[in-house]
């Protein structure tokens, strides 16, 4: 039995009058990969943004290694103090759809900056780590390039390296290939696949069904802010119970 890294209980969130998440609960075990599937507007991104602390939940609880990021007190989600929130934040990495690399830094510095400023690593250590990651992602020759000189696929691989350099315990991907041309999608998916083989704990929001099926241990299907169905890989991708889930997976698989 793998240990549970993240446990979410009944998370709800509204933007004004619009409820975007309703009673979302799931678990993510160490070394597992979770796919979060669903049409646009289903709340997938908001869920990732709550776990990575870019948004705040209204209700519910979230535990990271049994430590609460927030806990429902019966009327609202009660957030832990800044110290704990920050501690958890440093253990969670996020890869964005639009990369969000720092355009004024070289590739190398994009990967070293937070290691030095946040983790207080010395410059050599940070650079060694960055170079090892660039080597692994076949980007070593781009170390001195600026983001604007890279292709979309290269940019996304750099942003993965930037996240990995912080040694997160879990890495979240928010539609990591949606901004890429089809031929560049492959190189990014291969990197994520490689990470899953190395037993990196990950949660991936994606529309690439074949890919999701190949890397996931577990999947959840969301629509309209609700989890419609969840289960292990086989039950969701090949034998979903709900008609709506089957329909969605089928329509996205072509």
């Amino acid at each position: 039995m793998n240990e549970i890294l993240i446990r979410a209980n009944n998370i709800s969130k509204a933007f004004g009058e619009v409820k975007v998440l309703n009673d979302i609960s799931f678990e993510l075990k160490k070394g597992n990969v979770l796919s979060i599937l669903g049409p646009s507007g289903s709340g997938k991104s908001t869920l990732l943004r709550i776990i990575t602390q870019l948004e705040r939940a209204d209700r519910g609880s979230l535990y990271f290694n049994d430590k609460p990021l927030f806990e429902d007190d019966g009327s609202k989600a009660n957030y832990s103090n800044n110290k704990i929130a920050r501690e958890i934040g440093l253990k969670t990495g996020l890869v964005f759809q639009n990369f969000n690399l720092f355009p004024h830094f070289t590739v190398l510095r994009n990967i070293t900056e937070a290691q030095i400023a946040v983790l207080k690593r010395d410059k050599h250590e940070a650079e060694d780590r960055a170079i090892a990651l660039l080597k692994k992602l076949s980007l070593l020759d781009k170390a001195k390039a600026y983001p604007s000189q890279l292709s979309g696929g290269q940019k996304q691989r750099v942003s993965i390296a930037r996240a990995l350099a912080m040694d997160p315990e879990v890495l979240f991907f928010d539609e990591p290939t949606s901004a890429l041309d089809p031929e560049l999608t492959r190189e990014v998916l291969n990197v994520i696949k490689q990470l899953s083989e190395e037993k990196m704990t990950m949660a991936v929001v994606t529309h690439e069904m074949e890919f999701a099926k190949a890397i996931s241990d577990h999947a959840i299907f969301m629509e309209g802010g609700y989890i419609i169905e969840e289960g292990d890989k086989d039950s969701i991708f090949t034998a979903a119970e709900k008609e709506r889930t089957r329909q969605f997976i089928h329509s996205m698989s072509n």
Partner: protein
Amino acid sequence: MTKLLSLMLKGSIMNIKIFGLTLLFALPLGFIVAKGRMSKIKIVKALVNIYIQIMRGTPLILQLIFVYFAPYYIFGVSYDRFTAVIISFVINYAAYFAEIYRSGLQAIDKGQYEASKVLGFSKLYTFFHIILPQVFKIILPALAGEVITLVKDTALAQTIGVAELFRAAQNAASREFSTMPIFIAGVFFFVMNYLVSKFFNIVEAKMNYYE
């Protein structure tokens, strides 16, 4: 002729002083004003907006006169003319700089803040190391235009009797019944602004290391 030139050189030192001191205070003050203009607190935003409207909506020459004479008429106190010039220029230019900064700040994608937050940078670190360098590059052309205008505006200091280059030229012109000193003053302003433009060209080229 040499006497005329030395008089005008002396005068232009005053212009350079006004120029330098205005930038020294107005550039950072502009940032505070921009932050106020973008504040979520409605009353702060409204007050700062009114201030910017007044500064940009009335002639600088009028602001100079007001800043220098108002304390005299209201409180009966008078003070140093040069100080009045610096105060007027600083509060006027801070308003213009603020709007330039605001345009730059608003041009930064919110993803830059989000990536910084997820990586664990503090708010201060994010501002100075991630946001500010990018804002600086974006606003450089607009900033250059404003600084060039400032060089020319320093001639307005004579309105409240501060002896600067243009006043020196006008005095010389009426003494010698010749417009020549005025044109020489024009050359002085042109040369100063040529140097300012050159400076900004160099900085812009330096910032071109990324797109």
